[in-house]
């Protein structure tokens, strides 16, 4: 009987496990359904406007993009875009509630409505636009995989790196991109060492274990800024060998919010193209005769103020520029200190990819 008692306990345990597993399974089901079928999980534009603030999914640990500055304030490129969206929606760049998300949780948070907008250096890919139920909007930063080498090394391009030892972080497509890039350059990877975390790579790199360190250029720039002994010890090669467009995303089916967020982003780009900065926007508003600029800043014209029907206040472009700044200002404040050039992130008029549709 004692034996049977044990067995009964075992069966009970199994049953408990089964229930636990069932619960997990159900969770998975609902989230995958949520991705595909649900019309909209996030709050609509109207309910966000009524609420008076919106929830921006971000992080606090990536220098230059979203981190805490010396005084403990949130700073960074992505952080400022959260503020720009708040300025467009409410005319108040402080009307934003930041929610820190882990990489693995970010799409779940978006789908479940935990955040309204995701601005967390997230790469726009087909499967994320599709299967993950996210709706990616205008790209704010064109990133790509790059290579960090010692400043005093002879490496000028990947072609010089035949047989080199390359350190990288495990678990993503980084190594695949690396091997493809080397093959295209007509050289071979000597050794590719996949480490579990960047701290170990930095130790190994400094000891001379590897010739190069490959990761997203923006991440490399961040590592370079904080390099032991100073950023001048290392440099980043010009080649970029993968496409990583980063930008804000909202959940699928939330078209009004998507348009509003997208045009808040375009406001920063158009402002730079017009040469309007947070410093001169008041002056330009008072003096400009250019109908394009007057329309853009929401000034009275014959027939009233221009309203494109985006559900945003008439002066949202002005508020974004006045309270946050144009694209170039945001870039210079956050990305330039990392030692990154504008590169492909220059305005289209300067040969870059930053381009806003006409506001009319």
């Amino acid at each position: 009987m004692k034996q049977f008692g044990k067995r009964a306990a075992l069966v009970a345990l199994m049953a408990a496990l089964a229930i636990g597993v069932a619960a997990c399974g159900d969770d998975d089901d609902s989230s995958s359904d949520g991705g595909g079928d649900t019309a909209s999980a996030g709050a609509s534009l109207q309910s966000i406007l009524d609420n008076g603030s919106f929830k921006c999914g971000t992080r606090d640990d990536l220098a230059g993009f979203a981190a805490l500055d010396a005084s403990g304030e949130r700073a960074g490129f992505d952080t400022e875009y959260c503020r720009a969206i708040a300025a467009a929606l409410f005319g108040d760049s402080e009307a934003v509630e930041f929610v820190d998300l882990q990489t693995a949780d970010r799409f779940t948070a978006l789908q479940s409505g935990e955040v309204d907008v995701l601005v967390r250096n997230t790469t726009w890919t087909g499967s994320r636009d599709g299967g993950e139920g996210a709706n990616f909007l205008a790209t704010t930063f064109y990133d790509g995989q790059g290579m960090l080498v010692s400043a005093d090394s002879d490496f000028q391009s990947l072609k010089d790196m035949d047989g080199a030892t390359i350190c990288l972080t495990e678990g993503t497509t980084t190594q695949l991109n690396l091997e493809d890039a080397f093959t295209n350059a007509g050289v071979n990877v000597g050794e590719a060492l996949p480490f579990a975390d960047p701290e170990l790579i930095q130790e190994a790199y400094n000891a001379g274990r590897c010739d190069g360190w490959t990761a997203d250029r923006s991440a490399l720039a961040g590592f370079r800024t904080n390099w032991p002994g100073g950023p001048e010890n290392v440099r980043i090669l010009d080649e970029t060998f993968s496409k990583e467009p980063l930008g804000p995303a909202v959940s699928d089916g939330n078209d009004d919010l998507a348009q509003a967020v997208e045009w808040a982003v375009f406001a920063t780009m158009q402002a730079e193209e017009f040469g309007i900065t947070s410093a001169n926007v008041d002056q330009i508003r008072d003096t400009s005769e250019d109908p394009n600029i007057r329309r853009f800043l929401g000034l009275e014209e014959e027939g009233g103020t221009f309203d494109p029907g985006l559900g945003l206040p008439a002066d949202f472009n002005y508020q974004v520029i006045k309270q946050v700044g144009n694209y170039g200002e945001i870039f210079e404040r956050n990305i330039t200190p990392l030692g990154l050039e504008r590169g492909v992130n220059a305005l289209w008029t300067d040969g870059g990819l930053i381009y806003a549709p006409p506001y009319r």
Partner: protein
Amino acid sequence: MTAAQAPARARPPLWRDVRVLRVVGQAAALVVVGMLLAWLWSNLQNNVDSLGIPAPTDFSYLNQPVGQSIAGSDLRPTQSRLDALQVGLVRTIQIAIVGIILTTILGVLLGIARLSQNWLVATFARIYVELFRNTPPLVVIIFIYLGMFINGGFLPRVGDAVEIPNLLAADIRGISVLWVSFTDSPWPYLLVLVGAIAVGWGVVRWRNHVQDAQGKPTYPMLSGLVVFLAMAIVGWLALGGPTELSAPSVAENGRVTGGNKLTPEYAALLIGLVLYTASHVAEITRASIQAVARGQDEAAKALGLSAGQRLRKVILPQALRVAIPPLSNQYLNLTKNSSLAVAIAYVEMTRVTSDLVANGAPAFQAFLLLAFLYLLISLATALITNFINGRLAIPGR
């Protein structure tokens, strides 16, 4: 009395009959477990269907190109994922075999040292055991990697390689030594070596037998070694010298080429695993020696055997019987802990699998296969230790 017992022997009702309850209980448990498994399986299939990923029985992903190389192997990106997994499997087995041998030697020595009459030796062994037994193996491995190799300072930077011409070249990328490789298929000569080991072992046993029968020293190990070496040399000459030497050298760009390279990652993993597991083996050895009845040692002493002879011929053979089952546990632990290599960039089976999954291989199949491979290695280890255990067990018990 007999009259009173008779009704008690009559069968109790079914729901109180222990024999019936046992069968019913087992059957019920079986049904529950079976249903649970069936439900899990159908759940998996449904989810996989709805996500549009390959069915859980589809292993065709293994035939696709792997797209990446593995540091220190000849694998090219165009080879299949199966080839990559094979490289990982061989490396895991290699770590397991080398690690088990080194762990056993170090652990047994430490275990004996713990029982030493010498205070210094015993205390050192004790501190060692307490230190490593109470530290997570991952910490030990990373500590060895960073503290000993990367920041240890004894390996020079690339371009400043320490070199003993044609014999050894060492820098931070690894220690390359002169190495023998086969010009052609290695199998014929390996067969010769296996034969030489078998014959040499036969000679050892035969000389041992003569020694026991005649009571005079016949140097069995030495004779066996001589026979083995003679056969190995004759076989090498007969096959026309099937090997060639690969010597390390420093190229113009400062990199070391040729020879066999021991990388810091492999060395750190191996040393870390050996140091950690040896602390457990030492405790097993100590306990097993203490489990041998004291009278055995006293009797051997009375026969006039020296301390070394007593340990070798009387105590250890008996201690081994106690030690083998827990030892095999530690061997399995070492094998499984080798997956901690993921932290320090040594690519083995687990690392290959997680890379495959990161690059689009179906996670369920890939990890199922990984679990199955670890199971195979574990079963093989258990099979060998069980065989040894069977040979050593006292007959008739």
